[in-house]
């Protein structure tokens, strides 16, 4: 049989020196469900964007039914029969299902919108995906599953030969997922190919025919799903020649419990039980994307609505706003320093002293400048002048400014969400050395990161998060990396 979609030696570089995809291959046959697996940062998203025409590759070939093609835009890809269904569905909620199905390519007669034809063809497309709702309802009024069906039906109105689904299960419950699977089987029996991206091995077993594993921007191997045990897949995802991580020398874990969370629940299934943080501890949170690490940190910081039963140094702790949390001694270095952490257009010292000045009347610029300079020097931050705009600093130095906000404020519990994102290797090492130093002076730190090696090297304990729950807690000093990584991928403690 001739493959419907072939990707050969695809690469994508972001100048000057980031390589998102090195050498990726994928061959998809008509009528198959081809799964794509890979750890965080393996290059899945980049790979999908190249397939869907949302990005242009730096090298390599894309062939559709044997013909070499170049996608300059998503509509090029759609015309060639490649359709992408994003996790954040790109539908217009204020428009009807029928209008959404033909967005950008409405049926016309004599140049005028042919509503009758649109409705007729919408009904046909909805019937093919087994949808029971009318084409006249607003997309916004549908459930997530209904919206997903609408997105699939839209691919059909474009005569898609390959439908790429990016983690469709993330927002669906069990029954909804079953109905999506039914639709997928129906479509594949008609010869449509599905590229299915998920990190849940269980789903793969239920729906997939073949699976391709990506790691560090390369295609590792393609397996038949049946007859390949989980352990082989996990090894392919993780790779066997991992860099040996050298753990930092750390003092023994204190018995002094600072923060004790009996239970904390929130939106999207966040449900954390029995979490605790010791004085001077560096606790790591690890897990796949969407495991609830950021939500947990933001809830602790009072920045996200939640219900919780927790104690801070023995006292009940119920932050209703970041202001409450900061007063209780918390400090958050948010995931995205540019949109959440800094006022890029404002002076360095103003950013650094923003939390500390609250409650004062006069701005006292001179004192704030000297406070900022003292702490920034402690963090060996490189900058020209404290009045310089923070946007002019490098990523690592910007992150130090965010950190300095809480050091100047005197926060005792630091919540670091992806603190090393966008930093080069030197800056990362520098950052973790600082965190180590702070913890030795009595600060308690929670670090959430998708860079497992960092967490493994720096933390006293590692909590594994999976779909909103904390499923395990390991001491990296006596646990090897594989055990924790497997736990993270499988969503359960590996039985060994």
């Amino acid at each position: 049989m001739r493959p419907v979609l072939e990707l050969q030696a695809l690469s994508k570089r972001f100048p000057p020196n980031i390589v998102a995809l090195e050498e990726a291959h994928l061959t998809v046959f008509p009528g198959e469900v081809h799964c794509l697996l890979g750890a965080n940062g393996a290059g899945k998203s980049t790979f999908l964007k190249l397939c869907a025409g949302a990005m242009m590759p730096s090298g390599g070939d894309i062939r559709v039914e044997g013909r070499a093609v170049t996608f300059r835009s998503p509509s090029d890809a759609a015309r060639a029969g490649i359709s992408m269904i994003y996790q954040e569905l790109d539908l217009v909620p204020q428009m009807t299902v029928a209008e959404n199905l033909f967005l950008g390519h409405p049926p016309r007669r004599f140049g005028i919108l042919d509503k009758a034809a649109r409705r007729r063809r919408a009904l046909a497309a909805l019937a093919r995906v087994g949808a029971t709702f009318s084409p006249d309802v607003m997309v916004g009024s549908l459930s997530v599953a209904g919206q997903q069906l609408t997105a699939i039906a839209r691919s059909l109105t474009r005569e898609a030969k390959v439908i790429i689904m990016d983690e469709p299960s993330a927002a669906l419950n069990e029954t909804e997922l079953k109905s999506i699977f039914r639709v997928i089987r129906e479509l594949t029996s008609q010869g449509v190919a599905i590229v299915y991206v998920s990190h849940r091995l269980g789903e793969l077993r239920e729906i997939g025919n073949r699976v391709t594993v990506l790691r560090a921007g390369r295609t590792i191997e393609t397996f038949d799903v049946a007859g390949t045990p989980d352990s082989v897949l996990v090894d392919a995802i993780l790779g066997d020649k991992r860099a040996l991580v050298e753990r930092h020398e750390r003092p023994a874990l204190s018995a002094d419990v600072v923060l004790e969370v009996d239970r904390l629940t929130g939106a999207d299934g966040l449900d954390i039980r029995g979490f605790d943080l010791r004085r001077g501890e560096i606790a790591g949170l690890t897990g796949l994307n969407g495991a609830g690490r950021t939500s947990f940190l933001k809830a602790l910081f009072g920045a996200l609505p939640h219900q919780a039963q927790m104690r801070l140094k023995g006292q009940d702790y119920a932050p209703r706003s970041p202001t409450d949390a900061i007063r209780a001694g918390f400090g958050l270095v948010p995931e995205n320093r540019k949109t959440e952490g800094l006022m890029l257009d404002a002076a360095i010292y103003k950013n650094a002293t923003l939390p500390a000045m609250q409650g004062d009347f006069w701005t006292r610029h001179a004192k704030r400048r000297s406070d900022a300079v003292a702490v920034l020097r402690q963090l060996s931050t490189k900058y020209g002048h404290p009045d310089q705009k923070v946007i002019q600093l490098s990523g690592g130095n910007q992150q130090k400014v965010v950190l300095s906000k809480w050091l100047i404020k005197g926060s005792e519990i630091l919540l670091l969400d992806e603190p090393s994102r966008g930093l080069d290797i030197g800056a990362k090492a520098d950052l973790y050395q600082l965190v180590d130093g702070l913890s030795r002076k009595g600060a308690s730190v929670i670090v959430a990161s998708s860079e497992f090696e960092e967490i493994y090297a720096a933390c006293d304990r590692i909590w594994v998060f999976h779909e909103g729950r904390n499923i395990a807690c390991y001491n990296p000093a006596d646990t090897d990396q594989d055990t924790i990584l497997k736990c993270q991928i499988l969503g359960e403690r590996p039985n060994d």
Partner: protein
Amino acid sequence: MTDQTRPSAARRLIDLCIEYNFIVIFLVVVIIATLLSPNFLTSGNISNLFQQAAVTGVVAVGMTFVILTGNIDLSVGSVCALCGMVVAVLLVGGWPIWAAILATIAIGAACGAVMGAITALAQVPSFIVTLAGLVSFRGVTYLLTDGVPVSGLPASFAAISATQIPLFPGFSLSSMAVIFLLLCVLAGGLLRLTVVGETIYATGGNPEAARLSGLSTRAVLILVFAMSGVMSALAGILLTSRLRIGQPTAAQGLELDAIAAVVLGGTSLFGGRGGILGTFFAVMLLQVLRNIFNLLGLGSFYQMTVTGLIIVAAILLNRFIDLRRGRG
């Protein structure tokens, strides 16, 4: 590094001119006006300029606070008229002047605070909330006296706006203009020297970063709208004092003049950047333009057309400067 942080004197002068381009533009317009008319640079005319700019200027100061947080207040004209009427009604009702003024300011603050609270707590865009305020407060203004102007105000009330205060020999300003200048200084000081002022900038510059730094961004929104209400009330009091009657149709379209001045003065509509200095010069610039046209005997149709063009030109200039600096 030192090259970047310590640029040459000439480079710094150019940077200052770009940063404060509204002052440069203002000076250019003043020079043109002086060349066009020998009557322009006389103490009487300058005093007039300030007197005429005062009402719009006071409202524009309040508007600057609101726009710095990335919001807008369309209700200022109506609140100004409402407060102008309220103070007149109270005075005619026999209230002492100080009590009438305080009560009016409190009403202005309340009008603003309510709109600010709806914006901040219910997270409704301020454009809509204050548009509703524009209509409703004007309605209340008419309801107060069934649309009839209120006259018969005490003569001492007129003195609030009309007293001539000699600043230096041969030059005096009306008390109204002096109040405008004082409010500019106070507002500028509040923005630059107090934590509240910096919180306003931070809320406009990056609301999420401000919230995650423990700033009470909601309280700040309510505060800036309340301050805009207070400024509108003061403008209404000055207007009624100058006209010597409470006029329910007064101050129509004042919100547009105020917004134009704030934006012309370099304050970003997205919040976080700008200040009172720019607003002050922009208010004066618009007034000088009006003055030139009057001195040249050109009608208000020309004034409106050219004023609009100048606003567009100034905004494009600022946009261009932003793009050159890579803030685009």
